[in-house]
């Protein structure tokens, strides 16, 4: 359906379609936001979006104008005066009208529209002189009498009308009800408002301008810019032409419905916007770094790294150390083995190992401090990621940032077992080891030589002279040289091994950090960013619902 005068081509898009699109965006925003949006605002958004679609489907041929006002202000009299015959009963009893009544200035009975409005009492005026053509005038029940039903009915219809005509009189124009609860509450609709001061004939002519000025002042206080008050008297016909003209102006423009719905859309978009904020682009770097650090500590990364370093050193020293002192290192168990992190590089755990089935390490449980630190880091990450977000969203971010502890521990442990492996054995260890064995052999040979010499001497064998290198006998040379060389090699190896172990630690640390970072991304940062993205979607949809070009 097209709304708007035929031939209005200056607008880039059809306004009715644009409005329906905005309503669609509003629905999307509401669905995307879900229960994180304010419930009342979401309900209002749902209602407005539905109303936009319904009203647009009904077409823009008719403009619904409602006469609303206090009891006794003369709504029905004005209705009759505009229609030109006594359609609505007029009386002195208050309240008089309790069921709305409509008059249609059209050859078409506008049944669908009136059904939608829920107005059963209908009167057809016909196209008439033409300049009111398309007008659907509704006489509302009052909204300030003791009859609460009247007020409910008036409120319902006020939600559906395109143009509000507020009817008041010199007695009631300063009433709190009409100003505070009706006009000021709909001040955004001021382009779709007319204010009528009825019963103007009862005010002395010289006083009327003062009353009109006073009412204008009150309307300005309600938030209307440049309000126009039409003083009328349905009885004498005074001001009725001006009113008819003003209504005709709105009717012939045909954009009243669009304007009204636009304002409603803007209103709910604004309300929903209060429930969203300006989210940070993502999780800040330093918050992530802190979280990864805390996760690493909770996963026992420092313990594992110490084990890696010590295990490397221990193995290296055992293979390259002096053969005679190697027994010492067997006193201490291999730290990696103790933590069950001694998987061979690239290989599966040894067959028959229970880890093959469990895939778990024997890392100690995280300490209370580490757990607490992780909790804090998660909290800080949530805080940093939810700066500028309203509470519901911030709470959701916080929930996403605090996954169940058991899941986390499991994921971290898997990261640990997959990244920590036993070091490879470098070739030079074997070379140095061989040298050490040679040294040991030399020492043993020297000792055996001496023992043999001593034994032979004791048994009184005559032996040839022990070969000497200068004054030093060969066996002594073997012992001292072997030991000296062993110690030298051992010291040299230690000088290489300590930094190598540290290097090994760094390599493992880097890969562990990456793995822990992966866990952080998958389990915490990802869900947090998903919430932020959802928030971003809502904001974007609301922008489109608010009329921004998509």
């Amino acid at each position: 359906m097209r709304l708007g005068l035929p031939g209005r081509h200056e607008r880039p898009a059809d306004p009715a379609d644009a409005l329906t699109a905005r309503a669609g965006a509003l629905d999307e925003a509401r669905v995307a936001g879900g229960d994180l949006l304010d419930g009342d605002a979401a309900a209002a958004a749902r209602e407005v979006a539905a109303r936009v679609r319904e009203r647009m489907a009904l077409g823009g041929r008719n403009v619904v104008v409602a006469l609303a006002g206090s009891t006794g202000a003369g709504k029905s009299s004005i209705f009759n005066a505009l229609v030109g015959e006594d359609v609505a009963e007029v009386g002195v009893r208050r309240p008089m009208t309790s069921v709305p009544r409509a008059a249609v200035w059209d050859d078409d009975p506008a049944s669908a529209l009136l059904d939608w409005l829920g107005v059963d009492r209908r009167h057809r005026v016909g196209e008439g002189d033409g300049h009111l053509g398309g007008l659907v005038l509704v006489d509302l029940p009052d909204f300030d009498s003791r009859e609460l039903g009247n007020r409910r009915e008036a409120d319902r219809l006020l939600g559906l009308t395109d143009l509000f005509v507020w009817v008041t009189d010199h007695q009631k124009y300063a009433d709190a009800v009409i100003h505070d609860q009706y006009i000021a509450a709909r001040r955004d609709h001021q382009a779709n408002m007319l204010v009528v001061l009825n019963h103007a004939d009862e005010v002395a002519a010289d006083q009327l301008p003062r009353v009109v000025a006073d009412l204008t002042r009150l309307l300005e206080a309600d938030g209307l810019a440049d309000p126009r008050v039409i003083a009328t008297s349905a009885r004498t016909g005074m001001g009725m032409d001006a009113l008819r003209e003003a209504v005709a102006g709105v009717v012939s423009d045909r954009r009243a419905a669009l304007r009204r719905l636009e304002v409603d859309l803007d209103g709910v978009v604004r309300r929903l916007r209060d429930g969203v904020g300006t989210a940070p682009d993502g999780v800040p770097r330093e918050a992530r770094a802190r979280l990864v650090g805390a996760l690493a500590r909770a996963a026992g990364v420092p313990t594992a790294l110490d084990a890696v370093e010590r295990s490397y050193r221990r193995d290296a020293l055992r293979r390259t150390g002096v053969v005679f002192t190697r027994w010492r290192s067997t006193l201490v168990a291999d730290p990696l083995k103790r933590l069950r992190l001694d998987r061979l590089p690239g290989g599966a755990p040894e067959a028959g190992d229970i880890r093959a089935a469990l895939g778990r390490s024997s890392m100690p449980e995280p300490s209370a401090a580490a757990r607490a630190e992780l909790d804090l880091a998660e909290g800080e990450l949530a805080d940093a990621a939810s700066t500028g977000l309203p509470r519901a969203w911030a709470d959701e971010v916080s929930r996403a940032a605090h996954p169940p502890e058991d899941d986390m521990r499991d994921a971290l442990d898997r990261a640990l077992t997959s990244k920590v492996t036993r070091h490879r054995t470098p070739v030079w260890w074997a070379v140095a080891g061989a040298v050490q064995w040679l040294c040991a052999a030399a020492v043993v040979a020297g000792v055996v030589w001496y023992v043999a010499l001593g034994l032979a001497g004791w048994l009184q064998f005559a032996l040839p002279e022990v070969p000497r290198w200068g004054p030093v006998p060969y066996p002594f040379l073997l012992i001292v040289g072997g030991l000296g060389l062993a110690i030298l090699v051992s010291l040299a190896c230690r000088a290489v091994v300590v930094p190598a172990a540290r290097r090994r630690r760094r390599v493992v640390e880097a890969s562990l950090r990456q793995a822990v970072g992966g866990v952080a991304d998958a389990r915490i940062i990802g869900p947090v960013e998903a919430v932020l993205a959802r928030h971003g979607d809502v904001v974007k949809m609301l922008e489109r619902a608010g009329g921004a070009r998509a």
Partner: protein
Amino acid sequence: MNTPGPEGPGGAEPIASRGLGILRDAVAHLRDEAASAGLTLDVPGVADARAARAALVDQIDDYLLPRLSSLDAPLLAVVGGSTGAGKSTLVNSLVGDVVSRAGVLRPTTSAPVLVHHPGDAPWFADQRILPGLGRVTGAVPAEAPQDPSSVRLVDSARMARGLAILDAPDIDSVVTRNRDLAGQLLAAADMWIFVTTAARYADAVPWDLLRQAAERGTSVAIVLDRVPSEAIGEIRAHLGQMLQQQGLGQAPVFSIAESALDPRGILPDDQIGPLRDWLRALAEDAEERAAVVRQTLTGALDALETRAGALATSVEDQHNAAAALLSEVDRAYHDALDQVARDVSDGTLLRGEVLARWQEFVGTGELFKQVESTVSRLRDRLTSFVRGRRDEPEPLGEALQTGASAMVTAQAQRAAATAARAWRTSPGGAAVLERHPDLARSAPDLDTRVERLVRDWQAGIFDMVRTEGKDRRAAAKGLAYGVNGLGLALMLVTFASTGGITGAEVGIAGGSAVLAQKILEAIFGDETVRRLAAKARENLVRGVRELFDAEALRYRRALEDAMTDAGQAARLREAASAVKAAR
């Protein structure tokens, strides 16, 4: 029931005059109790409760106390009604002179005008009634700004003696101040002259007030003003029907037709006549007048108990809400303290970093060295020098300290977050939290305080070891390990002494503590070790409790002004019963 008659609604004489002084004191006491009722927390309905409190105090000040002080004071009839109903015109016409400004602009009257007989002046000139409002005398100046915080007193010889009328501001215009003042003045009235019009007689706002009047038993007279003469019969009948429904069927109704005013803005005599005559007759008949006074007074006194009861309920709500908020805080910190106590004793603190340090300590043979090095300090120094490392237990101590600090800090933060979350969703709590945004997290100096706490605790442990070692044979032996080493051992034992460690960790974390325990037992004896460990744990938990109490105190302070004393509601009810008993 609202026609002023010889009998009050209660039938019997409502107020025994001899008990008047007692009754007056009881009402005054109730007023003081009501005025001091604490309603600071923003629980649902608190705005209504505050308004009810103000209305109650105002009515006692403005009406009950002055009326009880002098039952024979002139009757005060307050003319009230909607804006534009013609109240001022009515008053001017009753007086026969322009005393209150009337006009086409709404609302016209914003400062109340009280018209009385010159002889009655002393009754109104002082602050006997309406003590909250100032006094201005003389006729209303034509265009001078009106001061709504004072009553303009006008004497007129045409008023009957013994009856004064007060032109109140409207009850329903956009000016809030007018509505509030009108409500206050109507509560101070002996009788309401309720003015409405043909266009307004079905308005919701005045009917709310009339219903209140009916409930309170206030004497009411209705003036139906500005009626088109042709419609008088129909409207009058409809209004009568509505009054009947509201229980005001017997209230006198005076109709005044829409008629041309004389140049001063005064109604023609035939219209105002009946009302004026009725008022004059009322003024002249002392008995009738007393009956009107009694009826309204009785109604107001009757209502006191309900109103005081409602106020007491509100005060209780406040008290309960504040108590609920506090219990949330207490629960959060109590849980945190429980968790700390558990973590301190079940060995969890020995995991991770501490365990690693301990393994380093034991695994590298440092402990053995320390254990055996009774005389080998020199050698230690030498090895330290040679190996470029000092064999000191400091890394372990540091790990223990940071572990404990972080755990306590985290529990405190968690408690603060839990408490804040609970407050955000509790009635009244959100507003307090908004006023004190710092309550969303722990005090900013928490970290330093926790660190100091743990440091002090460690120092206390070293002291314990030192004093324990001094008077023992073991002193010499103990000295060899160094106070620090023993202190750390004691800390380990403290953190694991209930042996709550399970599974694979028994051998690791538990084992470390067992080893430490063995050393300590060798030096001090097992009884002492147990005692020391218990004492150390107790000290830490006590320190943490004090710290958490200080944290919880921040919340308590924020609620200080809201924490009404528990007896206030009871005292209010008592005061109301005292009023009842004094009647």
